């Protein structure tokens, strides 16, 4: 299989997936694109938005289209870590009794962590190892997760009551964070028609499999990205740090912590995936621009002044992008 074929097949796969999702989801092209990009990168996606915007439906549709094993975890304040990763239970087998591991819902290819910020930080942290190491340790036994493994989490805006902000370490493990916005009037009308007609909403059929998805993930890494573009990404990430010479004045004023190195990885890999989704044989500047904000927005921590003044990290990143040119 040549690179060209892999890229073309990967691109075709993403096209099929997009078509399948579009059968269910109206609008939200950016969100779908970033979800597919995260899928191609093998990363996790954090969807943020108020309830009722179709976040869960998007994830379910995507999982259905991929034909992968899907599980859903509804995060609530009383959810325990064992409810996610599983636990050892005492079972009788033949002549005796012994503890046997009962896998939790995290043992799936696509995990929907719905309203993840409603659980306590302790429970939220139960996903840390699974998201980063692709393993789960219960007792003294470490269990590997199946590949591909993708966590698609949704959360309500943190300003809402009854939510627990995700720990920084937890947030940093999401490749992208995408804000789901309200649909437009036309989109909303279409949503209303689809859901109120006689034909009930049906999840899409599987259009891919794990093997095809893994191949696509490998193809993404082959996409060339010129050294000056990589340097530009790194410079941008470093510029989110208040003490960096390339930092903007807003960053110096409102940012407490800049983006971690994972941000650069996410941006570069996401740009490659974005290029593949666009059917391009190489990364372009606009690919970087498309993934720059989703890759960094959840990794920049505002200081007290920024939080008090209601500064948006997205606007800071937009300013950073404009002020730091590639050449």
């Amino acid at each position, binding site marked *: 299989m040549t690179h060209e074929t892999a890229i073309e097949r990967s691109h075709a796969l993403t096209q099929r997936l997009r078509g399948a999702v579009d059968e269910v989801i109206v609008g939200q092209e950016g969100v779908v694109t970033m979800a597919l990009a995260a899928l191609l990168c093998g990363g996790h996606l954090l969807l943020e938005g108020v309830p009722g915007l179709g976040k869960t439906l998007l994830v379910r549709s995507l999982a259905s289209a991929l034909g992968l094993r899907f599980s859903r975890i509804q995060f609530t304040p009383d959810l325990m870590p064992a409810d996610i990763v599983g636990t050892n239970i005492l079972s009788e087998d033949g002549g005796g009794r012994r503890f046997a591991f009962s896998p939790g819902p995290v043992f799936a290819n696509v995990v929907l962590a719905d309203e993840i910020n409603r659980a306590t930080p302790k429970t939220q942290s139960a996903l840390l190892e699974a998201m980063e190491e692709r393993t789960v340790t219960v007792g003294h036994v470490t269990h590997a997760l199946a590949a591909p493994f993708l966590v698609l989490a949704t959360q309500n805006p943190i300003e809402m009551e009854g939510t627990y902000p995700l720990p920084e370490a937890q947030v940093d493990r999401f490749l992208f964070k995408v804000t789901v916005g309200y649909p437009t009037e036309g989109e909303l009308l279409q949503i209303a028609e689809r859901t109120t007609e006689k034909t009930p909403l049906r999840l899409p059929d599987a259009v891919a499999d794990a093997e095809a998805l893994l191949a696509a993930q490998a193809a993404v890494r082959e996409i060339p990205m*010129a050294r000056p573009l990589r340097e530009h990404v790194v410079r941008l990430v470093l510029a989110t740090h208040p003490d960096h010479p390339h930092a903007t004045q807003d960053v110096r004023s409102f940012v407490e912590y800049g983006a971690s190195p994972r941000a650069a990885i996410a941006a570069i890999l996401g740009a490659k995936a974005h290029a593949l989704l666009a059917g391009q044989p190489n990364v372009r500047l606009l690919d970087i621009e498309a993934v720059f904000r989703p890759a960094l927005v959840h990794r920049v921590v505002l200081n007290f002044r920024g939080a008090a003044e209601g500064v948006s990290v997205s606007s800071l990143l937009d300013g950073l992008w404009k002020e730091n040119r590639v050449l």
Partner: protein
Amino acid sequence: MPLDPVRLEQRILRAHRRHLGFRTASGALAISAGLLLALALAERFLGLAVPRQLVLCLAVLVAASGALGFLLGRRRRVDIPRLLLSVDLALGTGERLCSWHELRCRGGASELRCRVEDEIGKIEWPWRRVVRLRARDVLIAGASALALALALTVGTVGERTTEAPSARSVPAEETGYEEARVEISKERAASFTPRELSTGVARASSSEGELAAPYEDALAEILPTPPSATVFGEPSETDAGARSAGDAGTGESLSDLLSRIARRGQENSGRGLQLTDEDKAALREMAESVPDPRLRQLLLAMIDEQDAAKLEDQLEASRRLLGGAGVAAAEDLEEPPLESGRGDEEEASGSEAERALAEGSLEGTSSDGVPEAPGQVALSDAQIDSDDLGSVAFPPEEQGGTASRRPDNDPPSRSSGAGFVLGELLTELGASGDLRRFFTKGIPFEPPADAADVVGGPGFDGEALRTLLVARDLPTSRHDVVRVYFETITQGEP
């Protein structure tokens, strides 16, 4: 025909290197032209005296910096991926070129690279937009060109304005002085007879009365004789005897008087030569009028002499002094170039008086310490320098008072007292010596500091001259003219 990305990259690289050379050359030109402009402005407005050599060096530096900048700029390190990315961004190629370069650097021929090359082949390449000069570079180049043009303009205008005011600021008499010099030179070239030469000079001097006045005034201080009769060559009689006796009329009268006395002595051979009171009165009168002290002393000695034999000797010496030098001077006029004529002259001036005349013009005293007749050296055409106003030998007593009589036992080859004449120089300064033409009556000559050991050329003491001119209240603006005059005739020797 598909576009070959490799050749495309090379072409872009060549164009970029040209631009780098242009940029560097522009920068170097801007710096050097700015320096040149600053220098020109400083020279023009601040009155900074900039040596021509420095200006020339800077001009060469400007040209060299441009060329060197271009060459060095072309050799500057080029970040090819960034260069290709800039081309990509300028043309909106979707960053194909730099990505292709990335794939090429990875090595191997992948189908992904072929795909990128295909995409590159589809792109139109408007070369004017591929590698463009930045506006900043164009500005720098324009600024450097402007600075260069300004420097040239300021320099040219500066030269004009500095030349024009200098021409205007030169006093009329100085300008006239220069004109007189030119005229004199022309006259000399046309007529090299010393009499005519001195007449021409005198005419020039008289036509520039005011011009000559300060110099004559200054020289009058230097010389005991009137400067107009020395420097400007008025007494340049071909007859040395006449010069010894003052003007031509005095010479003739003295000659007649001496002849009469001699005839009477021959007629009264029995009693020996005796001077009458009339003779003594006439001789005393003549002694007062002759400028030559040796002749004057001879005449005064004759008046007081009682011994007939000694009186005859003194009479003969006076007549020889009066008439013999004229023969030597006439021979000088006829002799060819000085170098070849020196030996001839020594032969020609066989008489003691003539020899005394020739040596006395240089050394001032004869070997026995007896005052000798002043020498008068006439110049041949070949010896006349266009810048010389007159080359007149003079007695050492009159050399600005610097020469003194040499003691009798002193070897004649060394300098005499505070005198400037060195023995070695004598051969050069003889009646036909090469350096004779540098001598002009009235110049405040000074010997070199190491005159005792080194044979130096003739020169003049600038400090003495300045002191003299100040003492004579000569306007300061005219000092330089006098100094230049002496420098000219001494060939700038100290």
